[in-house]
């Protein structure tokens, strides 16, 4: 297959004395254009894993390969050009004084000529629907808007991979929805691979594949349907229960036999329909 990220048996300790590694022999790979979600309770090593991909931390063992590059001192900047990252706190990643300045920040770092920057900034802001806010200062933007600007900053760099490190966790539902929608649009249009680290069920459901972390280890891997069918155990995996699972568990408690495989909401309605007509 067309692998764009390969992580092979990496480990990481935050400090020497740390008995428990933040990452413990983790291996996986991501294909071009794929969206994977990494879930797990707080402290399970999800964010550390994300930071290992673009060299923000240096794994103590194992290899990371992004596109044609092996992660090392020499290739680190080439890798960072391929990987864009949206962080959790909308304020603490907004470097520029206005929306357009912030989008331009990464372009300035690459030393692009000004005419090209102007063009790319405009284009990127258009893609995240923030063009009309180009002159705004961050203090006058909502959290969701700031995250969309962060996405524009990445899109402008034309990367291959976008990592969302709990990018929606500090937003209100409206902001969360608008950011998720933007990610979906941008991913399709730019043919990006997306890695989202999340507790959000909708975000996880958008992925092609879900990786579950616990105590620095990759413990499960599967499609959203497969992972969601774990029902009540999802909470321990750091994910909310999807609504149909909640309802199934309530129905089960009131003595109705429910199927064990994962059902979508529509699936749930259909199942009830058949159940009801059988009586």
């Amino acid at each position: 297959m067309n692998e764009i990220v390969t992580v092979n048996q990496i480990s990481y300790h935050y400090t020497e004395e740390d008995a428990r590694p933040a990452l413990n022999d983790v291996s996986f790979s991501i294909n071009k254009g794929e969206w994977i979600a990494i879930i797990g309770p707080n402290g399970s090593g999800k964010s550390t894993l994300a930071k290992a991909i673009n060299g923000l931390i240096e794994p103590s063992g194992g290899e990371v390969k992004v596109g044609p590059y092996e992660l090392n001192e020499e290739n680190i900047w080439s890798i960072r050009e391929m990987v864009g990252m949206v962080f959790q706190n909308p304020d603490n990643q907004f470097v520029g004084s206005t929306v357009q300045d912030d989008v331009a920040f990464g372009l300035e770092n690459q030393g692009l000529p000004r005419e090209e920057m102007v063009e790319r900034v405009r284009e990127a802001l258009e893609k995240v629907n923030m063009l009309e806010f180009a002159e705004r200062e961050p203090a006058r933007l909502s959290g969701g808007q700031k995250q969309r600007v962060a996405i524009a900053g990445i899109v402008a760099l034309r990367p291959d991979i976008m990592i969302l490190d709990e990018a929606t966790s500090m937003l209100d539902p409206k902001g969360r929805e608008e950011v998720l929608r933007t990610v979906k649009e941008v991913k399709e249009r730019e043919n990006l691979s997306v890695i989202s680290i999340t507790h959000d069920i909708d975000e996880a459901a958008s992925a092609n594949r879900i990786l579950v972390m616990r105590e620095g280890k990759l413990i499960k891997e599967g499609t959203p349907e497969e992972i969601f069918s774990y029902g009540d155990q999802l909470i321990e995996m750091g994910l909310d229960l999807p609504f149909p699972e909640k309802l199934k568990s309530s129905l089960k408690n009131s003595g109705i036999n429910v199927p064990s495989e994962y059902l979508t909401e529509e699936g749930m309605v259909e199942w009830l329909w058949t159940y009801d007509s059988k009586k």
Partner: protein
Amino acid sequence: MMDKLIFGRYIPGSSLIHRLDPRTKLMGAIFFIIIIFLANNVWTYLTLALFVALAVGLSKIKVSFFINGIKPLIWLILFTVILQILFTSGQTIYFRFGPFILSEEGLINGAFIFMRFVLIIFMSTLLTLTTMPLSLSDAIEYLLRPLAVIKVPVHEIALMLSIALRFVPTLMDETEKIMNAQRARGIDFGEGNLYEQMKSIVPLLIPLFVSSFNRAEELATAMEARGYKGGEGRSKYRQLSWETKDTVTIIAFLGLAVLLLLLKT
């Protein structure tokens, strides 16, 4: 607490003064503060006052904003003026008490010093009221650029300045939030004796430091992830554009200096 920060805050507008290049305004204001020391008689002060009145008029900002700019400094001004009045000896003496002398020259000097303060405050208030802090930092960076030759880290200074400005509102919000949280836990800011007031600052300052350090760390990570590796090889997105009106303004300032040189005694 925001109420007290009106002085010097940018007021959006589209007047001629607003549209001037920030470099013009910054250089003009500095130049004005230098040449004000040329003034030494009624005519020179009158000329300066007219010049400032014209500039204020062109900015289309209410005079009350400028007067507000003086308020926080009024005690300093009065103190200096009074010292000037009481310690200037002269020929026409109205009154004498020990070392204190009240003379005609003293009074005139006092009036001039007062004028000097007011004009400087008006001019610098005009600069900050009509120029976005960000544009000011651009202008500072530009004007500092020659210093890069003698190894002054101009790029780093400029970046620090612009990030600092960008985080001012964020930190103000944060301060207010933490103050509220501590007030809700029974602290009264600004009440009690000096010792109590100093003590009440600790629960505000420590969280602010902690959060600023966290922010700085996260910001540094984010910058690194976006490919920031120092000033070398970086291009610049923001651009300043010099126009005819800027040249005209600079000529006006030079003209003012010439006028002062002619009129001074």
